[in-house]
């Protein structure tokens, strides 16, 4: 049986339907990515699975325990790393882990060894006795990751684990996540809007939009579903209709000043394609990304959503900065 099972899981706030019925089945040991723009229902879904939010309808179970009827058992079996930093910044690193160990009832005989093992995993041993207020953003994240793991959950939920971090730190965090999943043999469910990063880390992804899963599969499967390679051109006055009529072209989209063409066997058909367009200023071919999948399915660019939409993460980033003081 799958470690996470959801059946028509839904949540509404008054008239607003945040999650509109999600059916998922996630196997033990998977790293599963829940991808989607702001307000798509990612955080709400995770909130329900962690028993923080009560579903309006539908059901779900984790490690065989129903999230509504057996919340204490579910809580014991899940670890969660929130989008916002939730460390106790007056306590030291080791004290934060100790508090967590006590709350989860990890017996004192193994507490110390387990905490050391965890600090070692994220290379925080030499800062363990420092107050976490003095930690950098990346260090705080790392500590939160292992705090979520401390009680050996069956499932670890990570809500935007790299939000607000610089690219280098983000790459390191992903390395740690992969290492943790391997070492501990646990199931990881994460949300992120960094599509490229999700591609590298996740075994399987579900794309969620307006509270529904609109695509589900391995990153390769989803990219293959686009039907081939991406050709991106800068063209004056592109003959869109002509392009759409070509047999080997599976999609044409305008993105800024660029024409993005999805086509099969680009290496064979590119000369023919170029012969039909005049005034080509530049051409670039690349493999499709998950972001292309997202654009194809929703007609929107997830990156644009995140720069234009103020929404949750600008606020989180602001709070994040505030906490650094």
């Amino acid at each position, binding site marked *: 049986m799958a470690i996470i099972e959801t059946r028509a899981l839904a949540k509404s706030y008054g008239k607003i339907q945040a999650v509109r019925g999600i059916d998922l089945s996630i196997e033990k040991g998977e790293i599963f990515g829940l991808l989607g723009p702001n307000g798509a229902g990612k955080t709400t879904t995770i909130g329900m699975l962690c028993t923080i939010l009560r579903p309006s309808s539908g059901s779900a179970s984790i490690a065989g325990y129903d999230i509504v009827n057996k919340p204490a058992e579910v809580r*014991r079996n899940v670890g969660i790393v*929130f989008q916002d930093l939730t460390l106790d910044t007056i*306590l030291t690193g080791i004290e934060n882990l100790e*508090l967590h160990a006590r709350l989860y*009832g*990890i017996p004192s*005989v193994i507490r110390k060894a387990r905490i050391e*093992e965890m600090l070692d995993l994220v290379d925080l041993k030499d800062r363990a006795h420092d107050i976490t207020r003095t930690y950098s953003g990346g260090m705080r994240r790392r500590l939160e990751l292992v705090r979520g793991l401390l009680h*050996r959950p069956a499932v670890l939920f990570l809500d935007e684990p790299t939000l607000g971090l610089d690219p280098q730190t983000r790459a390191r965090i992903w390395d740690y996540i992969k290492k943790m999943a391997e070492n501990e043999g646990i199931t990881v469910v994460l949300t992120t809007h960094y599509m490229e990063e999700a591609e590298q880390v996740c075994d399987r992804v579900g794309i969620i939009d307006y509270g529904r899963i609109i695509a589900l599969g391995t990153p390769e499967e989803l990219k293959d579903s686009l039907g081939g390679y991406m050709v991106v051109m800068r063209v004056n006055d592109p003959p869109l209709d002509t392009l759409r009529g070509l047999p080997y072209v599976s999609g044409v989209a305008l993105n800024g000043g660029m024409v993005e063409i999805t086509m099969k066997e680009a290496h064979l058909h590119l000369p023919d394609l170029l012969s039909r367009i005049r005034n080509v200023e530049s051409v670039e071919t690349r493999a499709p990304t998950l972001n292309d999948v997202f654009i194809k399915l929703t007609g929107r660019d997830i990156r644009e959503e995140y720069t234009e939409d103020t929404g949750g993460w600008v606020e989180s980033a602001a709070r994040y900065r505030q906490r650094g003081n």
Partner: protein
Amino acid sequence: MNPRLVIAREGIDLMHEGHFKRELRGIYAVWWREFKIFQREKSRVVASVVQPLLWLFLFGSGVGASFSVGGVNYRDYIYPGILSMSVLFGSVFFGLYIIWDRKIDVLKAVLVAPVSRVSIFFGKVLGGCTDIIIQVLILFAFSFLFPAVNLWGIPLALGILLITAIAMVSLGLAIGSLFESLEGFQLVATFVVFPLFFLSGALFPVDERLPIWLQGAVKLNPLTYTVDGVRYALLGLNNFPLYVDIGIIVVFALLMIIMGSILFSRMK
């Protein structure tokens, strides 16, 4: 032995752990956190001890130069009142501190642990009471400077102040659960804490010389009975029988615990 194997086995044992034991451990964990923070924030402790001493030695000595009440020097007379004041302020503000905890999301990680909200509430109450009682003990250490104070009355006074601390931390947590912004702090200080203090008879005797409206307000104030009980224990002066004082404080504490745990459990 490989710790991982041990943990795996313990993990299974934990699933069968009793409900009651789990909650007790949760209460202890929250208390442990509060006590760590108390130990770390020494400046808070110093401030909370120095402030009542300023009241006693600057205000009390000043007024005491020309006044005494019931044959007791005014400075000694307000000692029980100032003890009660420091319990009131310390407790309510400790409880209200959860507004800040929520703002910086410290509570979030605690609230998803497999421990009930009510246990987290009790852990907080115990943590607050520990802080307050330590502060009160420090203030008691100065009691030899007040000639009128009967040192044998200290245990009774401590008991009354402990029950009051339980009530007032619960009240602070209850109010804190309702507020989402720190502006609430100022409101509560102005409209709850200061009236409770001024209307408690901490600084003046509660008798028929007071205007009628003031007498009524003072008698409705639960802190009045704390001050009266502590004053009886330490100075042998009282306006109400001791059983009335204790009875009212206990009932008030129970009401606050019930209200606090309900509001804390419903907190978003």
